[in-house]
């Protein structure tokens, strides 16, 4: 009997003192870090002018676009660089349409392509258009702290709560002051490193910091990276839902 009571007391003490122990080591709680990160990186609507520099095997291609998105279901991208001028992508829920002005033709693309790199880049349509919600999808653990480009960062390891999370494991270096991801490693279920990303610039949009310039590298292919810059960035603005229609796609 005494043994059972002792064990239960030990368990209760451990549960009560665990968060304190975490804070005692000087690290904030992982959940708090994710909350701050989500607060900064999630949005209801977004609008920006984007520029992608896609480097594959030493050759660089430039893609420029205007993008606008509402929630995770509606998005419209129009390419503005000379080679692709007028090409538009419309995303409605899990469906994607492409409009080619020269042919005046619309093509519906299978939904799984939303996860693929946009225009051959390492940035997927979801990366470019969708808000992230780390707390919902991942369990987090603070692994330590490190300086990244002169800024103090918390090293946080995220493990997928369910196999449906975009990545099985993430290691993030999160700015301790601005709550923006400075560096990130994305791992597959096999444990293999798939991609890395690095924030080159973070901007203050309203009261929050937002990564506006990142570079992503595929680790499955050598000499492949995409620099993605968002200019004229606006978050949580009021948007007209009428621009996310087939009529708007082909106008």
């Amino acid at each position, binding site marked *: 009997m005494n043994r059972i009571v002792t064990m239960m007391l030990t368990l209760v003490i451990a549960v009560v003192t665990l968060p304190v122990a975490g804070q005692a080591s000087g690290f904030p709680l992982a959940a708090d870090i994710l909350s701050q990160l989500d607060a900064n990186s999630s949005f209801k609507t977004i609008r920006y002018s984007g520029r992608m520099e896609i480097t594959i095997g030493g050759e660089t291609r430039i893609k420029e676009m205007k993008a606008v998105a509402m929630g995770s279901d509606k998005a419209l991208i129009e390419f503005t660089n000379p080679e692709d001028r007028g090409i538009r992508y419309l995303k409605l829920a899990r469906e994607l349409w492409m409009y080619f002005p020269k042919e005046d033709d619309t093509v519906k693309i299978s939904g*799984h392509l939303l996860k693929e790199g946009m225009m051959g880049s390492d940035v997927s349509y979801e990366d470019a258009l969708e808000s992230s919600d780390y707390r919902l999808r991942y369990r987090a653990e603070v692994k330590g702290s490190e300086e990244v480009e002169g800024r103090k960062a918390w090293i946080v390891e995220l493990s997928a709560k369910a*196999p449906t*999370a*975009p990545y*099985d494991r993430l290691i993030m270096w999160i700015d301790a002051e601005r709550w923006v991801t400075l560096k990130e490693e994305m791992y*597959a*279920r*096999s444990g293999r490193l798939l991609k890395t990303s690095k924030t080159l610039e973070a901007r203050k949009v309203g009261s929050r910091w937002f990564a506006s310039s990142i570079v992503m590298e595929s680790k*499955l*292919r050598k000499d492949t990276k995409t620099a993605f810059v968002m200019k004229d960035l606006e978050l949580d603005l009021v948007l007209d839902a009428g621009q996310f229609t087939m009529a708007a796609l082909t106008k």
Partner: protein
Amino acid sequence: MGVLWKIALRNVLRHGKRTAITGIVMMVGIGLFIAYDSILAGMDRISIDTMIDYSSSYLKVRTPGYVADAMGLPLDKGIADPEAVMAAILKADPGVSAVAPRTLFLVQASNYIDSSPQMAAAVDPLRDREVFKVASDVHEGSWLRPTADREAVVAMSVARDLGLKLGDSILLSARTIYDNDNADEFLIVGLIDNTAGLSGTGSIYLSYPAARALLGEGLPVTEIDAAAPRAASLDAELAGSAKAASLLAAALPALTSQPIGEFAKDYLALRESKSKGSFMLIVMILLIAAVGIVNTILMSVYSRVREIGVLRAYGMTAADVKKLFVREGLITGAAGSAAGLVLGGLLVWYMASAGLSISGLFGNLDLGAIPVNAVLRGEWKPGSFVTGFAFGLLVSWLAARIPAKRAARMQPTDALRFV
């Protein structure tokens, strides 16, 4: 035999050289027609057989949802109980000799420097080799082991493009059943040398344990493929497959059973237009033979004008003279056509037994659905023998009528005075 037939036969034999020339022209024309038709049927057969042996199989069973979105290779529209479905297929149609599950999916194949998108197939290695011929096309190394979860068999063209060889590791990344990416290395245990055969089904093969390690444990079987013993002719093959599909439609109403004819419908439509083209070629050959017959009989008429005068003077009517020359044409045509059947038969026998090497004929030229390493075998088509003989007789009869009419129009007095 009537008197006219006897005279006609004697005349044909008397002008041996002319008869032989016409007969040879007909023999070559009809013999080539039969051989050409046999080759065309062989090409059709090898194209459909390639589909059956590598991708479409004799019969394919999938869910209606998968069929509707087949181009997207959806992994969420699999068959709920594939073992039960396979058992039901074998029970519903005794003509089906084997069944095998497959799941097609897209991968990025990489050597960490370059990558290329490829279609891949998860297979049951033991069952798959009972239905498809991919296992027997392994050029280097071996086919997959059923339980190996880190092995891949890869098309030689893919390995060559990535600079990989047998025993190297290939990095495969793919969208999992959870709609996220996974990537892992697989040991190349076999290389397949058959680009055409693999074009519709994939160039990378993994066992189900390996595919599930990459794509998720819940990876479903998305198609059941069936095999049947090879039918004697393509038409019998297509009819047998269609009948099996209708039997399965009744036995498995919740699934879609598709016969090989559905997958080959574009090719079969092309075959229809191709047969029209080949018919025109045959008509040209036989027209040349017809010109030979007309020429032979015309020469026979002009060289025997005085003889015609004598026959008329002895009381033979104009109609009899016409009949005589028509019969001469028919005898020549029948002999030439019969010789054509013999020649055609010999050519088809050679092509059906020895076959023609595709690579020998076309080198490494890409022939679409026909594998370069295949052997093209002629098909026996009794119909083309009947058609060739009947066409030869018809053309001979039509061709003989022109000079026969001319001979019949001659007056006995004019004919007797003809110098």
